[in-house]
């Protein structure tokens, strides 16, 4: 191997810092083919880059073991006072830099709401400090209020799945329009449609308060397998077979499940997740029924099946897929 060109340069540290930046960037998501090309170029520049990257990636994967840490141990890491020498040095530097920096980092910017949003076809999962989990489906906007008292989340649009660690002292409330869902220790799904709100409970229970403009509030306590729809202050509850209710959560696995679903409904469901839209051209075709489990982005597979099963014509215009007679 070649001796170092410039032995005074800490090249190992440079390679390592670059490798860490790449690893972090890859993990962040929104990784494009241009990014991949840049990454490939960087790797090809030197075997030192490859080994530095492999080394960091290996330990970062091993760090998954840390998930087995119990809560007290983990807390220790989050609020540890056992400072290493490095940290002490860093602290001295911070103090030297001055109070301005300190203020920014000690007091987070005004306690404003945090807004989370997903684009068409994207999903996102959030973990709250108390261990509760929220999964955002496609094309969804969710606002998390940071105030004291009840934890309030507003579903502005779209759909989200909630797995809430119940705390009687601090209620968890999902607001959407005039309606709200109060968690009573539960897992539930909330979907905001233009004219109604749909809530399905899978575990525990939740209370749905429906309120129309100027109307009195209606409430219902929902139990597992209950599906409720609130629309303009009226509220109706039905019980779905568990399996059917669970089909509505297939998106969490990246799938869509249809059972005797009309082509129109199936197309509408696919269109929630994809930029390339399925257009059903014919009213009769729209009422044909189809079933099956599909990858949510697999429009091609779906239209192929519709063609073979239902005999519809499939035309791909590049921007749309048109189903016709």
């Amino acid at each position, binding site marked *: 191997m070649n001796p170092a060109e410039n032995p005074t340069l800490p090249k190992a540290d440079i390679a390592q810092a670059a490798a860490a930046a790449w690893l972090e960037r890859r993990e962040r998501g929104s990784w494009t083919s241009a990014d991949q090309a840049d990454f490939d170029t960087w790797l090809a520049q030197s075997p030192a880059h490859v080994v530095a990257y492999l080394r960091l990636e290996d330990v970062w994967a091993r760090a998954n073991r840390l998930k087995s840490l119990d809560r007290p141990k983990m807390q220790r890491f989050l609020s540890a006072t056992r400072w290493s020498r490095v940290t002490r040095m860093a602290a001295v530097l911070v103090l030297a830099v001055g109070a301005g920096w300190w203020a920014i980092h000690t007091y987070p910017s005004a306690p404003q709401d945090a807004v989370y949003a997903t684009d068409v076809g994207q999903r996102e999962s*959030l973990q709250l400090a108390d261990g509760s989990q929220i999964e955002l489906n496609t094309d969804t906007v969710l606002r998390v209020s940071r105030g004291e008292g009840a934890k309030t989340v507003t579903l502005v649009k779209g759909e989200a799945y909630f797995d809430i660690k119940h705390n009687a002292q601090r209620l968890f409330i999902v607001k959407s329009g005039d309606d709200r869902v109060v968690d009573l220790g539960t897992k539930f799904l909330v979907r905001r449609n233009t004219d109604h709100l749909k809530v399905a409970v899978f575990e525990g229970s939740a209370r749905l308060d429906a309120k129309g403009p100027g109307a009195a509030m209606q409430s219902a306590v929902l139990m597992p397998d209950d599906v409720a729809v609130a629309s303009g202050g009226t509220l109706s509850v039905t019980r779905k077979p568990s399996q059917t209710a669970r089909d509505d959560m297939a998106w969490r696995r990246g799938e869509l499940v249809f059972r005797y679903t009309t082509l129109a409904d199936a197309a509408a469901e696919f269109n929630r997740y994809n930029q390339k839209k399925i257009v059903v051209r014919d009213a009769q075709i729209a009422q044909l029924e189809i079933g099956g489990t599909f990858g949510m982005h697999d429009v091609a597979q779906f239209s192929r099946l519709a063609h073979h099963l239902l005999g519809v014509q499939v035309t791909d215009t590049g921007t749309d897929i048109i189903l016709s007679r």
Partner: protein
Amino acid sequence: MTKTSDIPSERPEVDPTGMVSAASKANAWFVREVLPLENLLLKFLRRGWRNESDVRDLCQDVYVGVYAAAQVEIPVYAKAFVFAVARNILVERIRREQIVSIEAVADLEELGLATDEPGPDKSAIARQELRRLQAALDRMPKRWREAVVMRKVQGMSRPEIALRLGIAEATVSQHLAAGMAALATLFHDDADDQRGHS
């Protein structure tokens, strides 16, 4: 992502480097057989080379040499091969810089490094690994550690970490990258630990 907010989608895990398959065999071997030797390798290099500031670079030189060889043919005895490369590099450096160092040519057998003896069983390795990871976290600056723990242990996304720590998302990314690098170094190298507590 819409403009209302900026949650980049989080990948649960980084996928393999995606390099061509010929290289990926060498990559897998390198990760499995060579990287676990880093702590021993650093001890060996420190014995042979007094200038601590060169040790990380020497280690990288060894890695590059071993990796290059593995792309041609994967060595049968990983440990013996790694330390043979390490010794050659040390000898080369000593010759080039005209330094005499007795320790540099210390017998490999004396260090008990030359043979590929069977290691401890899997569960012992897992426990030991967790302990080393914890020790590495302990020795990491707080900001980095917090970001790493929130991401790795609690599975939080970057926006959520930013929210919790009251810092910008770009800063979270910086802390994570720094944490990734520090974790690898501290995980492999317990020397700072020993010196720090002695």
